[in-house]
């Protein structure tokens, strides 16, 4: 079975996370920009509240067996040095029922993403 890992991280951490995933052997990833707020309701600076903070969403689909390793890799890289800070982001995991590679037109098995290309 495959799972989709969507992580919302700080834009300045995106390059580091992408490099870490590449080194860990999970090169396949899609990145897009999003804006959002968390349970701290944004940031209040003086009288101004910023509640649409720019973030980056990374989406990758991996084998369910690699779930913990990939999550740990993303988390360790995206966390602010030390104890972490509000705004470091979230990671969501959801099931993927089917996955297809368009160039070959075949349905992927569990080895769809990550690992060494055949």
């Amino acid at each position, binding site marked *: 079975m495959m799972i989709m890992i969507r992580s919302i991280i700080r834009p300045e951490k995106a390059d580091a996370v992408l490099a870490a995933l590449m080194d860990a052997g999970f*090169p*396949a990833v899609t990145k*897009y920009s999003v804006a959002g707020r968390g349970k701290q309701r944004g940031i209040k600076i003086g009288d101004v509240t910023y509640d649409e903070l720019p973030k980056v969403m990374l989406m990758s689909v991996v084998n369910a067996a690699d779930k913990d390793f990939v999550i740990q890799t993303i988390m360790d890289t995206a966390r602010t040095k030390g104890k972490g800070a509000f705004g470091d982001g979230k990671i969501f995991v959801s099931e993927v029922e*089917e996955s*297809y590679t*368009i*160039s070959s037109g075949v349905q992927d098995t569990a080895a769809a993403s990550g690992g060494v290309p055949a």
Partner: protein
Amino acid sequence: MKEVIAIVRINMMNQTKQALTDCGIDAFFAHEAHGRGKGFVNPKILEGAEQGYEEAASLLGEKGKLYPKRLVTAVVEDKQVACVVQTIININQTGMPGDGKIFVLPISDAVRVRTGEMGVKSIS
């Protein structure tokens, strides 16, 4: 209901939209995205390196570059999934790396905000 997420080449958006319409999917959501796959070598760079261009040769070892893509998301009924997947593959397939991916995810419920309809009714 299923959520079909397709990542396609940016120049294939028009054909992909047409393909979805042919399948009877009128509603979808698109997003600009950047992505990379398993890290195959770009065939054009390989060709250039073979012809002795130094720039191309220096790019050969470059991995992890993100390429611009379009991310298309459609929530469809269970019975439409096969048609949508097959049509997107047929339209987008060139056989080269970088054609994209299609993922099918389960959706537990959907709501049409205008009327408050739930479930399959909200997407048909």
